[in-house]
């Protein structure tokens, strides 16, 4: 049973087609990679799924429910969270304070979180420390978010998205802007953190090594359309995908996927 289904999504901004007839069906608990060049429509897709943009035509169903017209706040309450390409943090607050704000929203929401995340006021401090530990942010806990290096900002961004215990997590370029030696460390940390919660993950990535290592399935975007949709290895070796996205010099690494359950 598909947890997320997009049917016939179209979105244009004047003469620019950001999405043309997008049809996607995602199974629960899967890990899906979204690849494509800049401007191919990956972030537009995420923006539509989370309600930030409304598609011109088409529907989006989450857990069988039509969420096409829902605003981001509502979509988050239903259990679908995202991280951002450029981390969206509270720059004047410290790392720990950022998490406290996110956790505070969970407390204020009471029991309206679809994922069943509930938090009593007295559990907030331990939950914050727990998140700091799971994402390796303890060393930076009292630093203002504005001074952090990009990799740490990305981790904090993702940690804040995870606080509501989402059922679906959409990560927009989780390792872009992050130094090469940190990339795997960050993905390992994120995957370990979500493993226990049985979360469906979709992430946009430009680094094909990360895509091969962590995903079971890949969607390739080009010019607003999905040009390939299937198992990771097959898609990365697909002719069209190699032509428009991956390039022929960059061979997909075969074999074990880190994302295997």
């Amino acid at each position, binding site marked *: 049973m598909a947890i997320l289904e997009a049917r016939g999504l179209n979105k244009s901004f004047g003469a620019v087609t950001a999405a043309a007839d997008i049809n996607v069906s995602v199974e629960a608990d899967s890990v899906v990679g979204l690849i494509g060049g800049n401007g191919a429509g990956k972030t537009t897709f995420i923006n539509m799924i989370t309600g930030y943009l409304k598609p011109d035509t088409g529907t989006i169903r989450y857990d069988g429910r039509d969420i096409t017209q829902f605003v981001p*706040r509502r979509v988050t309450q239903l259990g679908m969270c995202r991280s951002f390409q450029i981390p969206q*943090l509270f720059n*004047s*607050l410290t790392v720990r304070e950022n998490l406290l704000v996110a956790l*505070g929203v969970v407390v204020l*929401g009471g029991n309206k*979180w679809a994922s069943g995340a509930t938090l009593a006021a007295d559990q907030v401090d331990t939950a914050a420390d727990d998140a700091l530990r799971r994402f390796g942010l303890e060393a930076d806990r009292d630093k203002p978010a504005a001074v952090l290096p990009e990799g740490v900002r990305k981790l904090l961004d993702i940690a804040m*998205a995870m606080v509501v215990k989402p059922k679906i997590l959409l990560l927009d370029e989780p390792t872009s802007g992050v130094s090469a030696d940190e990339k795997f460390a960050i993905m390992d940390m994120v995957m370990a953190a979500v493993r226990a919660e049985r979360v469906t993950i979709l992430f946009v990535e430009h680094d094909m090594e990360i895509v091969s290592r962590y995903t079971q399935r890949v969607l390739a975007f080009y010019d607003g359309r999905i040009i390939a949709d299937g198992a990771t290895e097959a898609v990365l070796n697909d002719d069209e995908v190699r032509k428009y996205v991956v390039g022929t010099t960059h061979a997909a690494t075969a074999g074990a996927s880190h994302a295997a359950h």
Partner: protein
Amino acid sequence: MKADRTPLWLGIGLAVFLGGGWLIPAWAQSLAILALGKGLVVLGLLLLMRCGLVSFGQGLYYCLGAYAAVSISKIFNLPPSLLTSDAVVMPLAGGIVAGAVAFVLGFLLANYRSIFFAMLSLAFSMILYGLLIKMSVLGSSDGFNITYGTAAGIRLAPGAHLFALYAVSVAMVFAALLGAHRFLSSHTGRLGPAIRDNELRVEYMGASVRNVVHLNYVAAAVLSGVGGGLVALSIGHIDPDLAYWTTSGEFVFVAILSGTTNVAAPFLGSLIFEWIKSVAYQYTPYTWQLVLGVALLLVIMFLPAGLWSLFGRRGKGA
């Protein structure tokens, strides 16, 4: 987890102020009432500034607070009553009326930010000014005198009026400080700086930015209304100038002077401002605004976080 000792400090402060009030001369008590009442308005500004909003129209609620109780009785020709001549009821009634108006206006204003929010808030205050100028039943531009004879229903002995109002002001301010401290430490209160930094993220976390802004706007209005009521009773006279944009501008001036890191800062700033104003007026009656302007310039240049930054980043505030 160390226990929150702020209520204890506030309790001690309350006792000090009430006890000390007996010892200071009458002019100091009057000055203090003005500072405390206007400080309440500035505290309201602090709440809004934490959300990243600057209101240039708090005069609207300050004026409503002063006019509310007495206007109702004048317009409907009611006999002088508890509502209009009680030092406790009158400011509280002003606060309630201000809050009700802010609740309605908030639906519009919560959609705007920065300069648009500032200009809209200014516009509404000038609308009230215009209305009051036209209303002859309320004395038009002359306004009218107000007096008080009771405090919380207790008849005041002659000569006890000033200290009674002083005590009421002190009590209301400490109650407001306690409330503000509680609010700012709460999860809803903490969303203010988050909204100032990144509204998109707040929405994506599942919270409503509009609702939090609306709440802060109403809270600021209630504080301004109570402050307006207290100042009006102290001065003994009210007129439409309370809603004029320069009155609102003065509150913003004091907010910048005080700094916004601590809920007590508005009252320190307000006290210093009123004191400088009275001293400057006494010695340089034709150039007192110059003195104030220079003072603000010096604060902006050397203490950009306001006077409270002299104490470092301590305590119970933003």
